[in-house]
Protein backbone atom coordinates (compact mmCIF):
# COMPACT_ATOMS: atom_id res chain seq x y z
CA UNK A 1 0.00 0.00 0.00
CA UNK A 2 1.14 3.52 -0.76
CA UNK A 3 2.74 5.21 2.27
CA UNK A 4 0.95 8.43 1.37
CA UNK A 5 -2.76 8.89 0.87
CA UNK A 6 -3.74 5.32 1.85
CA UNK A 7 -7.41 6.05 1.31
CA UNK A 8 -6.71 7.31 -2.18
CA UNK A 9 -4.54 4.31 -2.96
CA UNK A 10 -7.30 1.87 -2.03
CA UNK A 11 -9.82 3.85 -4.05
CA UNK A 12 -7.59 3.88 -7.11
CA UNK A 13 -6.98 0.13 -6.90
CA UNK A 14 -10.71 -0.42 -6.67
CA UNK A 15 -11.54 1.81 -9.63
CA UNK A 16 -8.82 0.39 -11.86
CA UNK A 17 -10.00 -3.13 -11.09
CA UNK A 18 -13.52 -2.03 -11.95
CA UNK A 19 -12.30 -0.84 -15.37
CA UNK A 20 -10.07 -3.78 -16.27
CA UNK A 21 -12.27 -6.51 -14.76
CA UNK A 22 -15.80 -5.04 -14.47
CA UNK A 23 -17.28 -7.99 -12.57
CA UNK A 24 -14.98 -7.15 -9.65
CA UNK A 25 -17.08 -4.14 -8.62
CA UNK A 26 -20.29 -5.00 -6.79
CA UNK A 27 -23.23 -2.66 -6.70
CA UNK A 28 -23.10 -2.03 -2.95
CA UNK A 29 -19.47 -0.93 -3.05
CA UNK A 30 -20.14 1.34 -6.00
CA UNK A 31 -22.97 3.01 -4.09
CA UNK A 32 -20.72 3.35 -1.02
CA UNK A 33 -17.96 5.10 -2.94
CA UNK A 34 -19.63 6.96 -5.77
CA UNK A 35 -22.37 9.58 -5.71
CA UNK A 36 -25.18 9.23 -8.20
CA UNK A 37 -25.06 11.62 -11.14
CA UNK A 38 -27.73 14.21 -11.75
CA UNK A 39 -29.77 11.87 -13.97
CA UNK A 40 -28.12 8.43 -13.65
CA UNK A 41 -27.17 6.25 -10.71
CA UNK A 42 -23.65 5.63 -9.45
CA UNK A 43 -23.18 2.38 -11.38
CA UNK A 44 -24.17 4.09 -14.62
CA UNK A 45 -21.62 6.83 -13.91
CA UNK A 46 -18.90 4.21 -13.49
CA UNK A 47 -20.09 2.45 -16.65
CA UNK A 48 -19.21 5.53 -18.72
CA UNK A 49 -15.56 5.03 -17.75
CA UNK A 50 -15.79 1.25 -18.23
CA UNK A 51 -17.16 1.54 -21.76
CA UNK A 52 -14.64 4.17 -22.76
CA UNK A 53 -11.75 2.12 -21.37
CA UNK A 54 -12.58 -0.87 -23.54
CA UNK A 55 -13.57 1.07 -26.66
CA UNK A 56 -10.55 3.37 -26.58
CA UNK A 57 -7.96 0.62 -26.20
CA UNK A 58 -9.73 -1.75 -28.57
CA UNK A 59 -9.71 0.98 -31.22
CA UNK A 60 -6.03 1.70 -30.66
CA UNK A 61 -5.17 -1.97 -30.97
CA UNK A 62 -7.16 -2.15 -34.20
CA UNK A 63 -5.15 0.75 -35.61
CA UNK A 64 -1.91 -0.98 -34.70
CA UNK A 65 -2.95 -4.31 -36.26
CA UNK A 66 -5.12 -3.45 -39.28
CA UNK A 67 -4.16 -6.52 -41.31
CA UNK A 68 -4.62 -8.90 -38.38
CA UNK A 69 -8.04 -7.35 -37.85
CA UNK A 70 -8.82 -7.84 -41.53
CA UNK A 71 -7.78 -11.50 -41.33
CA UNK A 72 -9.77 -12.20 -38.17
CA UNK A 73 -12.78 -10.06 -38.98
CA UNK A 74 -13.80 -7.20 -36.71
CA UNK A 75 -15.97 -9.15 -34.23
CA UNK A 76 -13.38 -11.84 -33.53
CA UNK A 77 -10.57 -9.28 -33.42
CA UNK A 78 -12.52 -7.31 -30.84
CA UNK A 79 -13.13 -10.44 -28.75
CA UNK A 80 -9.43 -11.22 -28.80
CA UNK A 81 -8.60 -7.59 -28.04
CA UNK A 82 -10.85 -7.53 -24.98
CA UNK A 83 -9.20 -10.63 -23.56
CA UNK A 84 -5.73 -9.35 -24.41
CA UNK A 85 -6.40 -6.04 -22.69
CA UNK A 86 -7.57 -7.85 -19.61
CA UNK A 87 -4.54 -10.17 -19.57
CA UNK A 88 -2.03 -7.51 -20.59
CA UNK A 89 -3.30 -4.06 -19.56
CA UNK A 90 -1.17 -1.16 -20.72
CA UNK A 91 2.00 -0.70 -18.69
CA UNK A 92 3.33 2.30 -20.59
CA UNK A 93 2.76 6.04 -20.68
CA UNK A 94 2.39 5.78 -24.44
CA UNK A 95 -0.27 3.94 -26.41
CA UNK A 96 2.41 3.08 -28.98
CA UNK A 97 3.35 0.22 -26.66
CA UNK A 98 -0.18 -1.13 -26.33
CA UNK A 99 0.41 -3.88 -28.91
CA UNK A 100 3.91 -4.82 -27.78
CA UNK A 101 2.84 -8.08 -26.16
CA UNK A 102 0.00 -8.90 -28.56
CA UNK A 103 1.83 -11.34 -30.92
CA UNK A 104 3.27 -13.24 -27.95
CA UNK A 105 -0.13 -13.28 -26.28
CA UNK A 106 -1.73 -14.73 -29.43
CA UNK A 107 0.87 -17.51 -29.48
CA UNK A 108 0.54 -18.22 -25.76
CA UNK A 109 -3.25 -18.37 -25.93
CA UNK A 110 -3.75 -20.36 -29.11
CA UNK A 111 -6.39 -23.02 -28.54
CA UNK A 112 -4.11 -25.77 -29.91
CA UNK A 113 -1.09 -24.81 -27.82
CA UNK A 114 -0.92 -28.26 -26.17
CA UNK A 115 -1.04 -30.15 -29.46
CA UNK A 116 2.13 -31.49 -31.13
CA UNK A 117 3.65 -28.92 -33.45
CA UNK A 118 2.73 -30.78 -36.63
CA UNK A 119 -0.90 -30.93 -35.57
CA UNK A 120 -1.37 -27.24 -34.95
CA UNK A 121 -3.73 -25.08 -36.96
CA UNK A 122 -2.17 -23.31 -39.95
CA UNK A 123 -4.33 -20.22 -39.67
CA UNK A 124 -3.17 -19.54 -36.13
CA UNK A 125 0.47 -19.72 -37.21
CA UNK A 126 -0.40 -17.24 -39.94
CA UNK A 127 -2.09 -14.86 -37.49
CA UNK A 128 0.84 -14.96 -35.08
CA UNK A 129 3.27 -14.23 -37.92
CA UNK A 130 1.09 -11.45 -39.27
CA UNK A 131 0.73 -9.79 -35.87
CA UNK A 132 4.49 -10.11 -35.32
CA UNK A 133 5.14 -8.40 -38.65
CA UNK A 134 2.66 -5.60 -37.92
CA UNK A 135 4.18 -4.95 -34.52
CA UNK A 136 7.65 -4.70 -36.06
CA UNK A 137 6.41 -2.23 -38.67
CA UNK A 138 4.87 -0.16 -35.91
CA UNK A 139 8.10 -0.21 -33.90
CA UNK A 140 10.26 0.80 -36.85
CA UNK A 141 7.90 3.64 -37.77
CA UNK A 142 8.99 5.63 -34.74
CA UNK A 143 12.35 4.10 -33.83
CA UNK A 144 15.48 6.21 -33.83
CA UNK A 145 16.68 6.26 -37.44
CA UNK A 146 19.29 7.79 -39.70
CA UNK A 147 17.23 10.56 -41.28
CA UNK A 148 18.95 13.90 -41.46
CA UNK A 149 22.40 12.31 -41.65
CA UNK A 150 24.72 11.37 -44.49
CA UNK A 151 24.20 8.02 -46.20
CA UNK A 152 26.98 5.92 -47.73
CA UNK A 153 27.24 5.47 -51.48
CA UNK A 154 28.71 2.96 -53.90
CA UNK A 155 32.22 4.25 -53.36
CA UNK A 156 32.12 3.65 -49.61
CA UNK A 157 34.49 0.86 -48.53
CA UNK A 158 33.01 -2.37 -47.21
CA UNK A 159 34.88 -1.79 -43.95
CA UNK A 160 32.91 1.42 -43.46
CA UNK A 161 29.48 -0.16 -43.99
CA UNK A 162 27.33 -1.28 -41.06
CA UNK A 163 23.63 -2.10 -41.03
CA UNK A 164 21.54 0.87 -40.02
CA UNK A 165 19.75 0.84 -36.66
CA UNK A 166 16.28 1.13 -38.13
CA UNK A 167 16.46 -2.23 -39.90
CA UNK A 168 14.89 -5.47 -38.84
CA UNK A 169 15.32 -9.02 -40.16
CA UNK A 170 12.65 -11.70 -39.86
CA UNK A 171 11.63 -15.13 -41.10
CA UNK A 172 7.96 -16.01 -41.42
CA UNK A 173 6.03 -19.17 -42.20
CA UNK A 174 3.62 -17.28 -44.43
CA UNK A 175 3.95 -14.35 -46.87
CA UNK A 176 2.66 -11.88 -44.31
CA UNK A 177 4.28 -8.82 -45.88
CA UNK A 178 2.41 -9.55 -49.11
CA UNK A 179 -0.84 -10.04 -47.19
CA UNK A 180 -0.37 -6.81 -45.23
CA UNK A 181 0.20 -4.73 -48.34
CA UNK A 182 -2.77 -6.30 -50.11
CA UNK A 183 -4.89 -5.07 -47.21
CA UNK A 184 -3.17 -1.67 -47.45
CA UNK A 185 -4.21 -1.55 -51.11
CA UNK A 186 -7.84 -2.14 -50.04
CA UNK A 187 -7.94 -5.59 -51.58
CA UNK A 188 -9.27 -8.69 -49.84
CA UNK A 189 -6.44 -11.18 -49.95
CA UNK A 190 -7.23 -14.84 -49.29
CA UNK A 191 -5.61 -16.77 -46.48
CA UNK A 192 -2.22 -17.57 -48.10
CA UNK A 193 -0.76 -21.08 -48.25
CA UNK A 194 2.32 -22.01 -46.24
CA UNK A 195 5.39 -20.44 -47.82
CA UNK A 196 8.42 -19.52 -45.77
CA UNK A 197 9.58 -15.98 -46.36
CA UNK A 198 12.52 -13.89 -45.26
CA UNK A 199 12.37 -10.11 -45.15
CA UNK A 200 14.47 -7.09 -44.32
CA UNK A 201 12.36 -4.18 -43.11
CA UNK A 202 13.94 -0.77 -42.90
CA UNK A 203 13.05 2.88 -42.68
CA UNK A 204 14.56 5.59 -44.85
CA UNK A 205 13.24 9.12 -45.27
CA UNK A 206 10.47 8.14 -42.85
CA UNK A 207 9.10 5.48 -45.19
CA UNK A 208 9.19 1.89 -44.00
CA UNK A 209 9.95 -0.59 -46.76
CA UNK A 210 9.84 -4.37 -46.63
CA UNK A 211 12.33 -6.11 -48.90
CA UNK A 212 11.79 -9.85 -49.46
CA UNK A 213 15.21 -11.52 -49.44
CA UNK A 214 16.41 -15.03 -50.23
CA UNK A 215 17.38 -17.47 -47.52
CA UNK A 216 21.03 -16.94 -48.44
CA UNK A 217 20.76 -13.19 -48.22
CA UNK A 218 18.89 -13.50 -44.95
CA UNK A 219 21.75 -15.53 -43.50
CA UNK A 220 24.28 -13.01 -44.79
CA UNK A 221 22.39 -10.12 -43.22
CA UNK A 222 21.98 -11.99 -39.96
CA UNK A 223 25.72 -12.66 -39.82
CA UNK A 224 26.41 -9.05 -40.68
CA UNK A 225 24.12 -7.93 -37.87
CA UNK A 226 25.86 -10.31 -35.46
CA UNK A 227 29.49 -9.57 -36.41
CA UNK A 228 29.23 -6.02 -37.71
CA UNK A 229 31.64 -6.91 -40.51
CA UNK A 230 31.02 -7.65 -44.19
CA UNK A 231 34.21 -9.71 -44.39
CA UNK A 232 33.07 -11.90 -41.50
CA UNK A 233 29.64 -12.36 -43.05
CA UNK A 234 31.16 -13.32 -46.43
CA UNK A 235 33.41 -15.84 -44.69
CA UNK A 236 30.35 -17.39 -43.05
CA UNK A 237 28.49 -17.65 -46.34
CA UNK A 238 31.49 -19.22 -48.04
CA UNK A 239 31.74 -21.84 -45.31
CA UNK A 240 28.00 -22.46 -45.29
CA UNK A 241 27.72 -22.88 -49.09
CA UNK A 242 31.06 -24.63 -49.58
CA UNK A 243 32.29 -22.02 -52.03
CA UNK A 244 35.51 -20.07 -51.99
CA UNK A 245 35.38 -16.63 -50.47
CA UNK A 246 36.46 -14.88 -53.66
CA UNK A 247 33.41 -16.23 -55.51
CA UNK A 248 31.08 -15.18 -52.74
CA UNK A 249 32.69 -11.76 -52.58
CA UNK A 250 32.31 -11.30 -56.34
CA UNK A 251 28.62 -12.12 -56.08
CA UNK A 252 28.21 -9.64 -53.24
CA UNK A 253 30.08 -6.90 -55.07
CA UNK A 254 28.50 -7.36 -58.47
CA UNK A 255 24.95 -8.45 -57.71
CA UNK A 256 23.87 -7.14 -54.34
CA UNK A 257 26.00 -4.40 -52.87
CA UNK A 258 24.88 -1.35 -54.86
CA UNK A 259 21.17 -2.11 -54.57
CA UNK A 260 21.36 -2.53 -50.80
CA UNK A 261 23.38 0.65 -50.34
CA UNK A 262 20.91 2.61 -52.44
CA UNK A 263 17.97 1.12 -50.54
CA UNK A 264 19.39 2.28 -47.21
CA UNK A 265 20.49 -0.98 -45.63
CA UNK A 266 23.76 0.59 -44.51
CA UNK A 267 25.15 3.61 -42.73
CA UNK A 268 28.74 4.67 -42.36
CA UNK A 269 30.51 2.94 -39.50
CA UNK A 270 31.73 6.27 -38.19
CA UNK A 271 28.19 7.66 -38.17
CA UNK A 272 26.58 10.38 -40.24
Amino acid sequence: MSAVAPGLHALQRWMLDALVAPESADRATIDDLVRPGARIDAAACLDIYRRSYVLRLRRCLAEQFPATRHALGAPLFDDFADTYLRDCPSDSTTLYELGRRYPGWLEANRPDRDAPEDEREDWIDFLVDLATYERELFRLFDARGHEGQRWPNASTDDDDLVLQSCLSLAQYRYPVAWYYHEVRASRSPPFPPYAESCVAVLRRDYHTTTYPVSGLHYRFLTQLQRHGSIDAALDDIAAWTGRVVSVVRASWTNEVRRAWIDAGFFVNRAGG
Partner: protein
Amino acid sequence: MDGVAAAFSHNATTMQNRLGLGVGLRNTHFDHILAERPAVDWFEAISENFMDSGGRPRAILRDIAQHYPVVLHGVSLSIGSTDPIDRGYVQRLRRLADEVDARWVSDHLCWTGVLGINSHDLLPLPLNGEVLAHVTSRVQAVQELLGRSLVLENPSTYLRFRDSEVSEPDFLRALCDATGCRLLLDVNNVYVSCYNAGTDPQDYLDAFPFERVVQLHLAGHQHCGTHIVDTHDRPVSDAVWALFARAWQRSGGAATLLEWDGNVPAFERVHAEVLRAREFMALLEGQSSGTGTEVPPSVLKDALHESESDEVLSTPADFLVPDVMGRSRLQPV
Protein backbone atom coordinates in the same frame (compact mmCIF):
# COMPACT_ATOMS: atom_id res chain seq x y z
CA MET B 1 3.33 29.57 -0.52
CA ASP B 2 6.90 28.42 0.18
CA GLY B 3 10.01 29.68 -1.59
CA VAL B 4 9.96 27.09 -4.34
CA ALA B 5 6.28 27.69 -5.07
CA ALA B 6 6.90 31.43 -5.12
CA ALA B 7 9.74 30.93 -7.58
CA PHE B 8 7.55 28.91 -9.92
CA SER B 9 4.75 31.40 -9.49
CA HIS B 10 7.09 34.21 -10.52
CA ASN B 11 8.23 32.11 -13.44
CA ALA B 12 4.61 31.53 -14.40
CA THR B 13 3.74 35.20 -14.41
CA THR B 14 6.26 35.70 -17.17
CA MET B 15 4.50 33.14 -19.36
CA GLN B 16 3.32 34.54 -22.63
CA ASN B 17 -0.32 33.72 -22.12
CA ARG B 18 -1.65 35.76 -25.01
CA LEU B 19 -0.67 33.45 -27.79
CA GLY B 20 -4.02 33.91 -29.52
CA LEU B 21 -6.06 31.16 -31.14
CA GLY B 22 -4.33 27.81 -31.56
CA VAL B 23 -5.04 24.37 -32.94
CA GLY B 24 -4.23 20.95 -31.49
CA LEU B 25 -1.54 19.33 -33.64
CA ARG B 26 -2.77 16.01 -35.07
CA ASN B 27 -1.07 13.36 -37.21
CA THR B 28 -3.59 13.71 -40.02
CA HIS B 29 -2.68 17.38 -40.51
CA PHE B 30 1.11 17.03 -40.61
CA ASP B 31 1.45 17.14 -44.39
CA HIS B 32 -0.93 20.07 -44.76
CA ILE B 33 0.88 22.13 -42.14
CA LEU B 34 4.29 21.41 -43.63
CA ALA B 35 3.13 22.26 -47.15
CA GLU B 36 0.89 25.24 -46.49
CA ARG B 37 2.26 26.85 -43.32
CA PRO B 38 -1.26 27.97 -42.36
CA ALA B 39 -1.71 31.25 -40.50
CA VAL B 40 -2.31 29.69 -37.10
CA ASP B 41 -1.25 31.57 -33.99
CA TRP B 42 0.17 28.53 -32.21
CA PHE B 43 0.00 24.74 -31.85
CA GLU B 44 -0.50 22.44 -28.90
CA ALA B 45 1.22 19.05 -29.24
CA ILE B 46 0.28 15.96 -27.25
CA SER B 47 3.47 15.26 -25.29
CA GLU B 48 3.25 11.47 -25.48
CA ASN B 49 3.01 11.55 -29.28
CA PHE B 50 6.48 13.03 -29.50
CA MET B 51 8.54 12.54 -26.34
CA ASP B 52 9.54 8.95 -27.15
CA SER B 53 9.58 9.41 -30.91
CA GLY B 54 12.75 8.78 -32.88
CA GLY B 55 10.92 9.05 -36.19
CA ARG B 56 8.86 11.41 -38.29
CA PRO B 57 6.56 12.80 -35.57
CA ARG B 58 9.41 14.33 -33.59
CA ALA B 59 11.13 15.67 -36.70
CA ILE B 60 7.88 17.34 -37.74
CA LEU B 61 7.36 18.88 -34.32
CA ARG B 62 10.88 20.29 -34.41
CA ASP B 63 10.10 21.80 -37.81
CA ILE B 64 6.79 23.25 -36.67
CA ALA B 65 8.40 24.70 -33.54
CA GLN B 66 10.67 26.75 -35.77
CA HIS B 67 7.68 28.49 -37.33
CA TYR B 68 5.04 28.59 -34.58
CA PRO B 69 4.88 28.83 -30.79
CA VAL B 70 4.34 25.35 -29.34
CA VAL B 71 2.77 24.23 -26.08
CA LEU B 72 3.03 20.64 -24.77
CA HIS B 73 -0.09 18.97 -23.41
CA GLY B 74 0.20 15.59 -21.72
CA VAL B 75 -2.21 12.78 -20.92
CA SER B 76 -0.02 10.39 -18.90
CA LEU B 77 1.65 12.40 -16.12
CA SER B 78 -0.92 10.93 -13.72
CA ILE B 79 -0.33 13.66 -11.16
CA GLY B 80 -2.96 12.23 -8.80
CA SER B 81 -1.81 8.61 -8.84
CA THR B 82 -0.47 6.91 -5.74
CA ASP B 83 2.20 5.21 -7.85
CA PRO B 84 5.63 6.81 -7.56
CA ILE B 85 6.26 9.66 -9.98
CA ASP B 86 7.70 8.28 -13.22
CA ARG B 87 10.91 10.30 -13.18
CA GLY B 88 12.03 8.94 -16.54
CA TYR B 89 8.81 10.16 -18.10
CA VAL B 90 9.24 13.64 -16.62
CA GLN B 91 12.87 13.80 -17.72
CA ARG B 92 11.95 12.86 -21.29
CA LEU B 93 9.17 15.44 -21.17
CA ARG B 94 11.65 18.09 -20.07
CA ARG B 95 14.02 17.20 -22.91
CA LEU B 96 11.21 17.58 -25.42
CA ALA B 97 10.04 20.86 -23.87
CA ASP B 98 13.56 22.25 -24.10
CA GLU B 99 13.97 20.99 -27.67
CA VAL B 100 10.85 22.72 -29.01
CA ASP B 101 11.03 25.71 -26.65
CA ALA B 102 7.59 24.88 -25.28
CA ARG B 103 5.83 27.97 -23.95
CA TRP B 104 4.45 25.81 -21.17
CA VAL B 105 3.79 22.18 -20.28
CA SER B 106 0.33 21.07 -19.22
CA ASP B 107 -1.48 17.94 -18.09
CA HIS B 108 -4.67 17.16 -16.17
CA LEU B 109 -5.85 17.11 -12.57
CA CYS B 110 -6.46 13.37 -12.64
CA TRP B 111 -4.86 9.98 -12.33
CA THR B 112 -4.48 7.59 -15.25
CA GLY B 113 -3.48 4.39 -13.48
CA VAL B 114 -1.98 2.67 -10.47
CA LEU B 115 0.20 -0.38 -9.80
CA GLY B 116 2.03 0.31 -13.05
CA ILE B 117 -1.09 -0.03 -15.19
CA ASN B 118 -2.18 2.84 -17.41
CA SER B 119 -5.87 3.11 -18.27
CA HIS B 120 -5.12 5.90 -20.78
CA ASP B 121 -8.13 7.70 -19.38
CA LEU B 122 -8.27 10.85 -17.28
CA LEU B 123 -9.76 9.39 -14.12
CA PRO B 124 -11.35 11.55 -11.43
CA LEU B 125 -9.92 12.24 -7.98
CA PRO B 126 -11.82 12.65 -4.75
CA LEU B 127 -11.33 16.29 -3.84
CA ASN B 128 -10.44 16.51 -0.16
CA GLY B 129 -7.59 17.45 2.18
CA GLU B 130 -5.74 14.14 1.92
CA VAL B 131 -5.72 14.29 -1.86
CA LEU B 132 -4.77 17.95 -1.91
CA ALA B 133 -1.70 17.23 0.23
CA HIS B 134 -0.82 14.28 -2.00
CA VAL B 135 -1.18 16.18 -5.27
CA THR B 136 0.59 19.23 -3.86
CA SER B 137 3.71 17.23 -3.03
CA ARG B 138 3.69 15.64 -6.47
CA VAL B 139 3.23 18.92 -8.34
CA GLN B 140 6.16 20.34 -6.40
CA ALA B 141 8.33 17.34 -7.27
CA VAL B 142 7.36 17.45 -10.95
CA GLN B 143 8.04 21.16 -11.21
CA GLU B 144 11.50 20.59 -9.74
CA LEU B 145 12.19 17.87 -12.32
CA LEU B 146 10.72 19.88 -15.19
CA GLY B 147 12.51 23.06 -14.18
CA ARG B 148 9.38 25.00 -14.98
CA SER B 149 5.91 25.64 -13.70
CA LEU B 150 3.29 22.99 -14.44
CA VAL B 151 -0.08 23.89 -15.94
CA LEU B 152 -3.03 21.70 -14.90
CA GLU B 153 -6.37 21.29 -16.64
CA ASN B 154 -9.78 20.55 -15.15
CA PRO B 155 -10.86 17.18 -16.67
CA SER B 156 -14.30 16.13 -17.84
CA THR B 157 -15.82 13.99 -15.12
CA TYR B 158 -18.60 11.42 -15.19
CA LEU B 159 -18.62 10.50 -11.50
CA ARG B 160 -17.94 12.12 -8.15
CA PHE B 161 -16.70 10.29 -5.10
CA ARG B 162 -18.60 10.43 -1.84
CA ASP B 163 -15.51 11.55 0.04
CA SER B 164 -15.06 14.67 -2.08
CA GLU B 165 -15.34 17.63 0.28
CA VAL B 166 -14.47 20.68 -1.80
CA SER B 167 -15.38 21.98 -5.23
CA GLU B 168 -12.97 21.64 -8.13
CA PRO B 169 -12.35 25.42 -8.38
CA ASP B 170 -11.55 25.58 -4.65
CA PHE B 171 -9.27 22.55 -4.92
CA LEU B 172 -7.40 24.06 -7.85
CA ARG B 173 -7.08 27.42 -6.10
CA ALA B 174 -5.53 25.77 -3.04
CA LEU B 175 -3.22 23.71 -5.26
CA CYS B 176 -2.03 26.83 -7.10
CA ASP B 177 -1.48 28.68 -3.83
CA ALA B 178 0.63 25.82 -2.46
CA THR B 179 2.69 25.07 -5.57
CA GLY B 180 2.67 28.08 -7.87
CA CYS B 181 1.31 25.93 -10.67
CA ARG B 182 -0.94 27.48 -13.32
CA LEU B 183 -4.20 26.42 -14.88
CA LEU B 184 -5.64 25.42 -18.21
CA LEU B 185 -9.39 25.96 -18.04
CA ASP B 186 -11.23 23.63 -20.41
CA VAL B 187 -14.54 25.36 -20.93
CA ASN B 188 -16.13 22.32 -22.56
CA ASN B 189 -15.05 20.18 -19.60
CA VAL B 190 -16.73 22.65 -17.25
CA TYR B 191 -19.95 22.29 -19.19
CA VAL B 192 -19.71 18.48 -19.37
CA SER B 193 -18.81 17.97 -15.70
CA CYS B 194 -21.43 20.40 -14.43
CA TYR B 195 -24.18 18.88 -16.56
CA ASN B 196 -23.27 15.38 -15.37
CA ALA B 197 -23.15 16.49 -11.73
CA GLY B 198 -26.24 18.68 -11.95
CA THR B 199 -24.38 21.83 -10.97
CA ASP B 200 -24.29 25.27 -12.58
CA PRO B 201 -21.38 26.03 -14.91
CA GLN B 202 -21.77 29.74 -14.19
CA ASP B 203 -21.22 29.07 -10.48
CA TYR B 204 -18.15 27.03 -11.43
CA LEU B 205 -16.70 29.93 -13.41
CA ASP B 206 -17.57 32.40 -10.66
CA ALA B 207 -15.49 30.35 -8.21
CA PHE B 208 -12.60 29.65 -10.57
CA PRO B 209 -9.19 31.25 -9.84
CA PHE B 210 -8.88 33.05 -13.18
CA GLU B 211 -5.76 34.88 -12.06
CA ARG B 212 -3.97 31.53 -12.49
CA VAL B 213 -5.25 30.73 -15.97
CA VAL B 214 -2.80 30.80 -18.89
CA GLN B 215 -4.84 28.80 -21.40
CA LEU B 216 -8.38 27.89 -22.37
CA HIS B 217 -9.55 24.76 -24.17
CA LEU B 218 -12.55 24.36 -26.45
CA ALA B 219 -13.96 21.12 -27.85
CA GLY B 220 -17.14 19.44 -28.96
CA HIS B 221 -19.13 16.99 -26.87
CA GLN B 222 -21.92 14.47 -27.36
CA HIS B 223 -25.15 14.86 -25.47
CA CYS B 224 -26.57 11.47 -24.54
CA GLY B 225 -29.72 12.74 -22.85
CA THR B 226 -28.91 11.62 -19.32
CA HIS B 227 -25.30 12.68 -19.48
CA ILE B 228 -22.74 14.35 -21.74
CA VAL B 229 -19.55 12.74 -23.00
CA ASP B 230 -16.46 14.77 -23.89
CA THR B 231 -15.93 13.33 -27.36
CA HIS B 232 -13.81 16.00 -29.11
CA ASP B 233 -15.39 14.87 -32.37
CA ARG B 234 -17.61 17.74 -33.48
CA PRO B 235 -17.98 21.54 -33.43
CA VAL B 236 -18.17 23.43 -30.16
CA SER B 237 -21.73 23.74 -28.87
CA ASP B 238 -23.43 27.13 -28.51
CA ALA B 239 -23.63 26.74 -24.75
CA VAL B 240 -19.89 26.17 -24.54
CA TRP B 241 -19.22 29.20 -26.75
CA ALA B 242 -21.24 31.29 -24.34
CA LEU B 243 -19.24 30.00 -21.40
CA PHE B 244 -16.05 30.60 -23.36
CA ALA B 245 -16.88 34.27 -23.90
CA ARG B 246 -17.16 34.81 -20.18
CA ALA B 247 -14.10 32.71 -19.37
CA TRP B 248 -11.96 34.44 -21.99
CA GLN B 249 -12.94 37.84 -20.64
CA ARG B 250 -12.24 36.87 -17.03
CA SER B 251 -8.90 35.32 -17.93
CA GLY B 252 -7.77 38.56 -19.52
CA GLY B 253 -7.55 37.01 -22.99
CA ALA B 254 -5.79 33.74 -22.25
CA ALA B 255 -4.39 31.64 -25.09
CA THR B 256 -7.24 29.61 -26.56
CA LEU B 257 -7.05 26.24 -28.27
CA LEU B 258 -9.49 23.94 -30.01
CA GLU B 259 -9.17 20.16 -29.55
CA TRP B 260 -10.65 17.93 -32.27
CA ASP B 261 -9.64 14.31 -31.87
CA GLY B 262 -12.35 12.04 -33.29
CA ASN B 263 -13.61 12.15 -36.90
CA VAL B 264 -10.97 14.80 -37.46
CA PRO B 265 -11.92 16.96 -40.47
CA ALA B 266 -9.59 18.82 -42.83
CA PHE B 267 -7.27 21.30 -41.19
CA GLU B 268 -9.09 24.32 -42.60
CA ARG B 269 -12.32 23.19 -40.92
CA VAL B 270 -10.64 22.77 -37.54
CA HIS B 271 -8.94 26.14 -37.86
CA ALA B 272 -12.18 27.82 -38.89
CA GLU B 273 -13.87 26.45 -35.78
CA VAL B 274 -11.39 28.02 -33.37
CA LEU B 275 -11.51 31.29 -35.31
CA ARG B 276 -15.21 31.48 -34.36
CA ALA B 277 -13.88 32.66 -31.00
CA ARG B 278 -13.34 36.03 -32.66
CA GLU B 279 -17.11 36.53 -32.89
CA PHE B 280 -17.40 36.29 -29.14
CA MET B 281 -14.33 38.42 -28.55
CA ALA B 282 -15.82 41.12 -30.78
CA LEU B 283 -19.06 40.99 -28.80
CA LEU B 284 -17.13 41.51 -25.60
CA GLU B 285 -15.10 44.36 -27.03
CA GLY B 286 -18.35 45.97 -28.16
CA GLN B 287 -19.68 45.67 -24.63
CA SER B 288 -16.61 47.29 -23.13
CA SER B 289 -16.83 50.17 -25.59
CA GLY B 290 -20.56 50.51 -25.02
CA THR B 291 -21.48 49.65 -28.61
CA GLY B 292 -22.15 45.97 -28.29
CA THR B 293 -24.69 43.72 -26.71
CA GLU B 294 -24.60 40.98 -24.11
CA VAL B 295 -23.85 37.44 -25.23
CA PRO B 296 -27.35 36.42 -26.24
CA PRO B 297 -29.02 34.23 -23.62
CA SER B 298 -30.30 31.97 -26.39
CA VAL B 299 -26.84 30.53 -26.88
CA LEU B 300 -26.82 29.42 -23.27
CA LYS B 301 -29.32 26.69 -24.08
CA ASP B 302 -27.74 23.66 -25.61
CA ALA B 303 -29.80 21.52 -27.95
CA LEU B 304 -30.35 17.98 -26.76
CA HIS B 305 -29.13 15.41 -29.21
CA GLU B 306 -29.80 11.82 -28.31
CA SER B 307 -26.85 9.56 -28.89
CA GLU B 308 -27.04 7.81 -32.25
CA SER B 309 -24.57 5.16 -31.20
CA ASP B 310 -23.63 3.42 -28.00
CA GLU B 311 -19.98 3.76 -29.03
CA VAL B 312 -19.66 7.15 -27.36
CA LEU B 313 -16.04 7.53 -26.42
CA SER B 314 -14.65 10.06 -23.97
CA THR B 315 -11.41 11.73 -25.06
CA PRO B 316 -10.81 9.48 -28.08
CA ALA B 317 -7.24 8.34 -28.44
CA ASP B 318 -7.14 7.56 -32.17
CA PHE B 319 -5.01 10.61 -32.67
CA LEU B 320 -2.35 9.05 -30.49
CA VAL B 321 -1.79 6.27 -33.01
CA PRO B 322 0.07 7.19 -36.20
CA ASP B 323 -0.85 5.96 -39.69
CA VAL B 324 1.91 3.38 -39.98
CA MET B 325 0.24 1.54 -42.85
CA GLY B 326 0.11 4.70 -44.95
CA ARG B 327 3.89 5.00 -44.89
CA SER B 328 4.75 1.37 -45.55
CA ARG B 329 5.51 -0.38 -48.84
CA LEU B 330 6.64 -3.78 -50.13
CA GLN B 331 9.40 -3.71 -52.68
CA PRO B 332 11.78 -6.20 -54.30
CA VAL B 333 15.40 -5.17 -54.05
